[in-house]
């Protein structure tokens, strides 16, 4: 049944969090069911400007199933995201949502969670922290890695987690990166969830392996279709993938969240 479509969603609010980070709440029409969304999934946002054809994959920051709404927090990196940042309440935007596979939550086995977000990898951790709490996690610790002292979303994590911060310039928290924070405070956990730049994810994969704990990593890559057809956004996998029949997986369809042992950086 061809029952999914790119839908016309409505921006209900948008605010600027920092110089280049924006927060947008979006309400979806009935034909797009947001109640199936889970943290770690993403949405494909399309530009109004027809010269920009490809969707922008943006991670889900918060889910409001009651009102069929999602929140995204994104960085303006190019003309497409700049266009999104100009949209005010009431504007429409074409979206396919939700897409990909999110984080797997199992609070019976993994009672103590460590969430690590670096830069624009921070937003998906918010809904995850909330869901982990709702599912009865014993402890939720969050390490947020920022460039500087503009600590977007930090306060919003406080109700759900113990929050630790690193900044590249040392203006707040530990000077350095998220892994420096984990080592500095000796943070321990049964499971790690992470999203952020590749060097950070590489480091976390090593750290998880050394400590013998599970890690779920959310990857990023340039995408074209966003639905698993074009093979633009693949990553190398340890084993031969069932779909591709070679050692790579589609980030948009098989991910963006992978078990750290599944993939090779």
């Amino acid at each position, binding site marked *: 049944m*061809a029952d999914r479509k790119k839908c016309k969603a409505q921006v209900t609010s948008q605010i600027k969090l920092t110089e280049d980070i924006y927060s947008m709440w979006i309400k979806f029409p009935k034909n797009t069911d947001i109640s199936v969304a889970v943290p770690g999934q993403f949405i494909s946002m399309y530009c109004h400007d027809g010269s920009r*054809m490809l969707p922008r994959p943006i991670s889900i920051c918060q889910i409001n199933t009651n009102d069929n709404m999602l929140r995204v927090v994104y960085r303006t990196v190019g003309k497409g995201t700049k266009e999104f940042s100009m949209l005010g309440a009431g504007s429409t935007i074409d979206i396919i949502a939700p897409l990909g596979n999110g984080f797997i939550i199992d609070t019976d086995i993994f009672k103590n969670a460590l969430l690590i977000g670096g830069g624009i990898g921070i937003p998906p951790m918010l809904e995850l922290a909330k869901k982990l709490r709702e599912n009865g996690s014993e402890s939720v610790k969050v390490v947020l890695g920022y460039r500087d002292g503009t600590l977007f979303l930090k306060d919003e994590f406080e109700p759900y987690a113990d929050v630790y911060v690193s900044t590249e310039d040392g203006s707040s928290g530990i000077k350095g990166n998220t892994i420096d924070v984990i080592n500095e405070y000796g943070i321990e956990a049964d499971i790690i969830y992470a999203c952020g730049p590749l060097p950070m994810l590489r480091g976390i994969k090593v750290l998880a392996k050394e400590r013998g704990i599970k890690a779920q990593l959310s990857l990023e890559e340039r995408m074209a279709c966003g*639905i698993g057809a074009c093979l633009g956004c693949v990553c190398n996998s340890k084993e031969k993938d069932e779909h591709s029949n070679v050692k790579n997986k589609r980030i948009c369809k098989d991910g963006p969240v992978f078990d750290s042992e599944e993939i090779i950086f």
Partner: protein
Amino acid sequence: MNLSVNFAGIDIKNPVTTASGTFGSGAEYKDFVDLNKLGAVTTKGVASVPWEGNQTPRICETYSGMLNAIGLQNPGIDLFIKRDIPFLKQYDTKIIVNVCGKTLDEYIEVVKRLAEEDIDLLEINISCPNVKAGGIAFGQDPELARQVTDKVKQYAKQPVIMKLSPNVTDITEMARAVEAGGADAVSLINTLTGMKIDINKRTFALANKTGGLSGPAIKPVAVRMVYQVANAVKIPVLGMGGIQNAEDALEFIMAGATMVAVGTANFNNPSVTEDIINGLETFMDKNGVKDINELIGCVK
């Protein structure tokens, strides 16, 4: 109103198919498009063995288009026959299988394997700009192109479409060469070789350095080449290159294409192929066109 066309001896219910590589084998689109509505699905290039493809980044956006250098990643013919053909057979649509290879023998191997399969047409990709061996080498030398066509025709049990590259001085020369080799049809255009530099990282936007340019940016080039080829050969033309809507498709048809393929536009809207077919009907209805065949090559 008649939307059906006869393409290389095959009756197809409407002239719209998908451009190879943009639609997988259709499975990823089944939630977005009623595959039964499509004239045909053209599958992603398949080789004799699985190919890993290129390193990432494999794609980047450009003005009104994109560059890709996927490198023909594919699961190989065995899995394709086991999984992808049966999937498509569930639907009332024709199957065009795109075939790629690094050597002539590799093309032949795939064509032989497909001989007994219940598919409708073969599209031989001699024009991929993103793999070093094979592909484009055959697509830029008329004599090699003729030889590949001739050899493929010896083993093919389905009509053979040769997919042509625009990265040549005179595309009509290539079209005539494959016609002389016995091709039943030609498809064009494949992507134009391009490059993008990431000025912030001071490097190439694609790991492969160059990629194939597609999307509406290349449409005028594609329409021109379809027109030239349609007037140079007797075999039918499958036209593609930047088609986003029914109006674009009609340009190709009026320039001489019997069928059209939609590629990059699927990334902008996964349901677009259905919209295009509906749009063709609307145009015909509005303009009192009873048979789409009246429009093929009507602009001389």
